[in-house]
């Protein structure tokens, strides 16, 4: 094997992740290739959680006592960190949610209740793509059912890319919102943001980018993207579960109506009526995921210290190697781009007619954790006429040796069901 270029010092990095030392099935060290589902957490993030709970835990914003001030400073400090991480023009544009799904639903609901010119109603259209995660499909189906708006989408090419050939028919003067994923969670495809944003801006439609599979893996610059909203989720980027982010352009957040009502999001309440706090608080009803925001802040620090460009290079090298090695496995067919160009480190495949469930089970027995099923992107499986896929997905701690383990594991699968 020729050495790969651009790899990180995984030996050092892996020491930060306690779970990677875990063994399963009688002493087999775990090979964790399920990073697109969720990432593991470095000690730095767990330390931040513990020190929050052991030193500073209090409810935020409303206290004059020391703990409340510390908790507020930590929580709002996490917002600063996330804002810097995505190059947001203002920290007040960063809304903490519980996960990317809530972020996406938040936008869909705001648009349903908005006044003109944002309002989605029966005269208007919503555009998504066939490679969206269910969390970027179902909210729009619900909005479409509830408002009468028409739901349209971009189809896929045979090699797992967006088919934009009919872009002018899909995105039209009637389009109010275009929502699409930056990186496909099932196929790894990186989508051409510019072309879509340009067309959307031409017709005056808003753009929401689902960056759930991008934020963990590549430098993310919301200003460079040119979108109006960007959503992502903490648990896939070394952060805790229970925290997501929605970034939105300030003037939109000012104009759009709130979603959830309650404590923290108000300015003043009487029984008759209420007024709302400015963004981001307007969209953060109730006690926020305080510790989880603090943990996400620590995750962002961790990733930034390593460097998002270096992480992207590492994953690209691993992906290139993995694609090459996987294609050596007889009867293996990659679903999605079969090269490492314009793709992330999630690789889906089918192996002859062995069902992915069976593939995953036999791999698990060898300590190799992959995900099997439709990966919350069932329309992609329908599109390619398959019931499900096996997906291996890599992250900053993944090694070429783990790719080799996967390939050996697949040989074993073939023998088992041969």
């Amino acid at each position, binding site marked *: 094997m020729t050495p790969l270029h651009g790899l990180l010092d995984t030996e050092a990095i892996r020491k930060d992740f306690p779970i990677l030392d875990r063994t399963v099935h009688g002493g087999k060290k775990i090979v964790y290739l399920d990073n697109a589902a969720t990432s593991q957490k470095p000690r730095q993030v767990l330390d931040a959680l513990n020190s929050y709970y052991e030193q500073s835990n209090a409810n935020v914003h409303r206290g004059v006592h020391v703990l409340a001030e510390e908790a507020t400073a930590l929580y709002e400090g996490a917002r600063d960190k996330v804002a810097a991480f995505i190059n947001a023009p203002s920290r007040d544009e960063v809304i903490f949610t519980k996960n990317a799904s809530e972020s996406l639903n938040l936008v869909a609901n705001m648009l349903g209740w908005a006044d003109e010119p944002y309002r989605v109603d029966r005269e208007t259209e919503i555009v998504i793509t066939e490679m969206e995660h269910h969390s970027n499909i179902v909210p729009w189906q619900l909005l479409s059912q509830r408002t009468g708006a028409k739901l349209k989408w971009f189809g896929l090419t045979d090699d797992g890319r967006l088919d934009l050939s009919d872009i002018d028919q899909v995105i039209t003067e009637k389009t109010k919102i275009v929502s699409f994923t930056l990186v496909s969670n099932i196929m790894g495809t990186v989508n051409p943001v510019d072309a879509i944003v340009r067309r959307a801006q031409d017709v005056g439609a808003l753009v929401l980018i689902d960056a759930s599979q991008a934020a963990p893996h590549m430098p993310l610059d919301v200003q460079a993207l040119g979108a109006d909203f960007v959503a992502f989720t903490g648990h896939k980027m070394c952060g805790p579960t229970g925290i997501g982010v929605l970034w939105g352009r300030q003037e939109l957040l000012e104009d759009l109506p709130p979603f959830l009502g309650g404590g923290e999001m108000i300015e003043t309440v009487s029984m008759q009526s209420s007024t709302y706090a400015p963004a981001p608080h307007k969209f953060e009803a109730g006690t926020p995921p305080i510790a989880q925001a603090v943990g996400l802040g620590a995750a962002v620090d961790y990733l930034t210290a390593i460097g998002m460009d270096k992480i992207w290079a590492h994953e690209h090298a691993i992906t290139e190697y993995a694609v090459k090695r996987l294609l050596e496995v007889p009867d293996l067919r990659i679903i999605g781009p079969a090269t490492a160009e314009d793709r992330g480190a999630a690789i889906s495949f089918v192996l002859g007619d062995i*069902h992915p469930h069976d593939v995953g*089970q036999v791999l698990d027995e060898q300590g190799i954790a992959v995900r*099997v099923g*439709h990966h919350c992107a069932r329309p992609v499986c329908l599109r390619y006429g398959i019931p*499900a896929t096996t997906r291996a997905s890599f992250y900053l701690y993944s090694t070429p040796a783990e790719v080799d383990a996967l390939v050996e594991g697949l040989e074993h699968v073939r023998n*088992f069901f041969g």
Partner: protein
Amino acid sequence: MKLDSMYQEVILDHYKHPHGRGLREGDAEVHHVNPTCGDEITLRVRLDGSKIADVSYEGQGCSISQASASVLNELLVGRNLDEAMKIQEVFLELMQSKGKVEPDDAMEEVLEDAVAFAGVSKYPARVKCALLSWMAWKDATAQALSEKESA
């Protein structure tokens, strides 16, 4: 190897050579999916009085769900409904045992080939695969009966 406890010869046999696969005429048809993995089955039941005349099915899924449908067909077709319900209950109990029930002779007599699924019960994510066709069958049978009643 622990895997062998799930993938018993009997199961792999049924998977590779399924019994009664394909859709034939029936009194009721149901379509069940396993939302956690997307496995699907379309299943029809034909009753002849209180006797199960046929269970036909089509679907996609892993070896466990496919083998389970095949075993179901082999085990239930030709039985009286009462008997079949009892078999279904015993199978359900076994599958929900989390590997803690060691099938005895009595159970083996009731379940025949289906005892081979004992090992699957240790794998919570796969229990639903094994139960998919059985739940579909129960549902279809209930529909067939209620249609007969109302007819």
